[in-house]
């Protein structure tokens, strides 16, 4: 029982991946719409995902999913066959269906009653798309199981002829096809415990199967290596299942065996009728008699095989490229403890190396090389484990795309949703905790930000509003922006509302930025009428507190008539970043590489004094103030000569440039960010800490804050600089 639960759990995990692939595919189709250059494999991939979900759901008796995905699949099949154009309207319906399918899967996972109320209209819509021809097959209930289970003993490859009821339902179903399948197994296939005969038996379940072993590759007994596979198989399968079903059989040996599936059109198929179909099927049905000679249909296959090889080759290479990348879902705590244990391992390794060298045995070649190997292995493990935590924001963005779709529908606004930087990697926990605030912001952007179609047209804008969601790493922080091209913040109204609600004094003098920030006050809601989407009075203040909890900041910029941008800047806490490891007065520190524009080894001529201590460097005609990090962090009391140091040129978010002076650059590597704030608190100029390969802690510099710190200590630089710079 529990093992069945486990398998079911696995199915749902698989569903997550399939749903992601489904969304991806639909997005691809949507993206290719304007050019019209749609890769048929994309639709195939989409079809396969829905089909797989259906298949899995069927084996767990999840009726609602099966029924819905069947309709969904039928529509996709039509689109695949070119009978249904992938236009905007159809894609929208498909996307809605994908969303609903995700809901059904979620309901199935939680053992809840599926939301059939939503299914009905969608199924109706789907049926509307299919048209008369496909409708018959869209009613799965009456269709007899298309893949009959082998009833007889598995060892017996001959089956009683199937009575194929050719009712009206079956007209759209694929007719019996003859497939030629070449299988070459790799040694790995056997090494991992697979056995081709099981695969072949499974294939036999799909239809009539003939198997021939090609023994040509078999060497003499003396030269035979037992572990090397020499056999190849040629299979002929007459079936009414599609090629996907055949591929599915080979799914688990995908990388372990070369499987070439070629569809061979039986000549009789042109005049398909009940009699000829069974005749074609019966042709290869006598395996024992024909196994010595070339089976008869093969010659026929060679003739008609001239046409399809191109598609067959394309099909064969496609699953590798388009198939969902396989992933494992792991408990986050497990990853964390793994990271920590590996950290200990690396420390242990360096301690061991130290002890060996002290014991004067490290010179022995065997010990030395083992130690080196140990070291490189430990570092490799560490590197791979570190990369486990970070995740691209893609899934989050997909989820947001759905929010946008739903919101725009309810709000009755047409919205174009763009995303940027989907590959930006953020820590998994952060991604999870961003869902809610981003949902809020996006809903607000559509509900409040974008104008109605009429007012957009009146303002000379296109009818469709644009909402853009982007993610990027900027000067060591993760920046997520939601921008719309709506009307912008109506500051006068915001002020009035805030004043009327007593949030500010009636006569308060506020700058534009201050007025914008009023949106974040608890209990502030601009919409006069409470709408379904937003405006319950809980809004931006919730966003603000959620982001603050992540240690981030939210900022608004808005231009009247041109739109509003919400920027969420998240600290590196929990995230992974590329860092430049530097030495500052004997302390190892890390500078986020994104912040560094260039590194400079200054010559005496470039550096100028300003006052008694402050120094500036001339970088291509601009003067940039130098901050000696050793001094700024109090690691040394008197500055070194700048020419002994290396300068890292950084740029702040405001576009100011600073040169951070470090003793030397040690390395460049990816580091995992560890919070200082939990156990200690904020350190000025320090963003976080990280643990280096030797187990030591290194501080990650916040270049922005460091520059600000230095700015307070320095005399105002700008006007003086120009004076000296002449």
């Amino acid at each position, binding site marked *: 029982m529990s093992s069945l639960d486990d398998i079911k759990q696995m199915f749902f995990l698989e569903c997550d991946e399939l749903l992601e692939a489904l969304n991806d595919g639909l997005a691809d189709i949507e993206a290719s719409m304007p050019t019209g250059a749609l890769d048929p494999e994309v639709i195939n991939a989409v079809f396969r995902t829905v089909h797989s979900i259906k298949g899995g759901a069927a084996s767990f008796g999840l009726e609602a999913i099966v029924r819905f995905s069947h309709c969904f699949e039928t529509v996709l099949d039509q689109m695949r066959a070119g009978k249904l154009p992938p236009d905007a309207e159809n894609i929208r319906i498909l996307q809605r269906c994908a969303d609903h399918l995700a809901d059904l899967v979620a309901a199935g996972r939680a053992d809840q009653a599926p939301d059939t109320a939503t299914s009905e209209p969608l199924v109706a819509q789907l049926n509307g798309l299919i048209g008369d021809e496909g409708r018959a097959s869209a009613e799965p209930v009456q269709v007899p199981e298309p893949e009959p289970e082998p009833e007889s003993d598995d060892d017996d490859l001959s089956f009683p002829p199937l009575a194929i009821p050719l009712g009206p339902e079956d007209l759209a179903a694929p007719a019996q096809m003859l497939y030629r399948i070449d299988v070459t197994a790799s040694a790995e296939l056997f090494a991992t415990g697979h056995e081709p005969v099981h695969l072949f038996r499974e294939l036999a379940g799909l239809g009539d199967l003939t198997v021939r072993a090609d023994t040509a590759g078999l060497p003499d007994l003396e030269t035979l290596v037992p572990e090397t596979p020499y056999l190849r198989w040629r299979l002929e399968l007459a079936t009414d299942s599609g090629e996907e079903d055949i591929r599915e059989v080979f799914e688990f040996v995908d990388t372990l065996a070369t499987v070439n599936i070629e569809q061979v059109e039986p000549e009789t198929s042109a005049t398909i009728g009940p009699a000829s179909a069974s005749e074609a099927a019966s042709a290869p049905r006598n395996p024992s008699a024909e196994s010595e000679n070339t089976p008869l249909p093969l010659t026929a296959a060679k003739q008609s095989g001239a046409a399809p090889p191109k598609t067959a080759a394309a099909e064969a290479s496609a699953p590798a490229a388009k198939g969902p990348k396989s992933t494992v879902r792991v408990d986050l705590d497990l990853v964390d403890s793994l*990271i*920590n244990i590996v*950290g200990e391992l690396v420390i242990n390794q360096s301690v061991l190396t130290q002890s060996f060298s002290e014991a004067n045995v490290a010179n022995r070649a065997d010990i030395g090389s083992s130690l080196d190997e140990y070291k490189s292995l430990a570092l490799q493990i560490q590197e791979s484990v570190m990369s486990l935590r970070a995740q691209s924001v893609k899934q989050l963005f997909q989820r947001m795309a759905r929010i946008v779709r739903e919101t725009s529908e309810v709000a009755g606004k047409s919205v174009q949703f763009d995303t940027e930087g989907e590959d930006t990697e953020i820590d998994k926990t952060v991604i999870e905790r961003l869902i809610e605030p981003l949902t809020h912001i996006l809903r607000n952007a559509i509900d409040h930000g974008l104008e109605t179609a009429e007012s957009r047209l009146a303002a000379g804008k296109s009818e469709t509003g644009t909402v853009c969601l982007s993610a990027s790493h900027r000067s060591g922080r993760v920046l997520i922006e939601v921008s719309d091209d709506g009307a912008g913040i109506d500051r006068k109204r915001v002020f009035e509302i805030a004043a009327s609600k007593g949030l500010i004094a009636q006569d308060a003098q506020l700058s534009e930025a201050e007025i914008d920030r009023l949106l974040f006050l608890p209990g502030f809601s601009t919409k006069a009428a409470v709408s379904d989407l937003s405006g319950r009075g809980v809004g931006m203040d919730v966003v603000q507190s959620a982001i603050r909890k992540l240690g981030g900041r939210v900022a608004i910029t808005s231009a009247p008539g041109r739109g509003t941008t919400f920027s969420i800047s998240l600290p590196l806490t929990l995230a992974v970043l590329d860092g430049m490891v530097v030495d500052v007065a004997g302390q190892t520190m890390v500078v986020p590489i994104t912040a560094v524009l260039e590194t400079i080894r200054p010559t005496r001529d470039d550096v100028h004094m300003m006052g008694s201590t402050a120094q500036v460097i001339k970088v291509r005609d601009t003067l940039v103030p130098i901050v000696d990090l050793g001094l700024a962090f109090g690691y040394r009391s008197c500055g070194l000569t700048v020419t002994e140091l290396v300068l890292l040129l950084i740029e702040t978010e405001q576009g100011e440039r600073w040169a951070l002076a470090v003793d030397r650059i040690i390395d460049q590597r990816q580091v995992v960010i560890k919070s200082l704030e*939990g*156990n200690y*608190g*904020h*350190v*000025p100029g*320090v963003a976080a800490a990280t643990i280096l390969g030797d187990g030591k802690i290194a501080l990650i510099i916040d270049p922005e804050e460091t520059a600000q710190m230095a700015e307070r200590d320095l005399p105002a630089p700008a006007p003086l600089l120009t004076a000296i710079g002449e």
Partner: protein
Amino acid sequence: MAEQIEDDHSTGARELVSFAIGEQDFCMDIMLVREIRGWTNVTMLPHAPSYILGVINLRGAVVPIVDLASRLGLTPLEPTQRHVIIIAVLGNQTVGFLVSAVSDILGISPSEIQPPPKVGADATAGFIEGVIASDDRMLRILNIAAVLPRIQMPEEA
């Protein structure tokens, strides 16, 4: 002995870890102590109070190390290999305390604990929640919550 400790528990007795800082004896509640480890080199924290020696990596967590002597207003310790770090957990905060040596684990009944004597505005006094006089020495019970470095939020900085 074990039996006796058990008995102590039922009568509300406390188990304390006693340790030495320089010449003085202190103790803290054993429930706060997560582990005791040898001195390892720390990573210095800039702009930190003088009693913060720096941070160490404790199985992946960044843990600040407090020089208890300096924190209590005594002569700061010069950390060597012989010194000991007591890792204490209070709420969500994990902190290491540098001490000279850990001596003993004691079961003390509440009646043995006296309120700290009023000795004026000594820096140490505020961090002591009680004293135990035993034989020839005096054990000071540390108020860990008071000794902990205050967590600074970015806004305050």
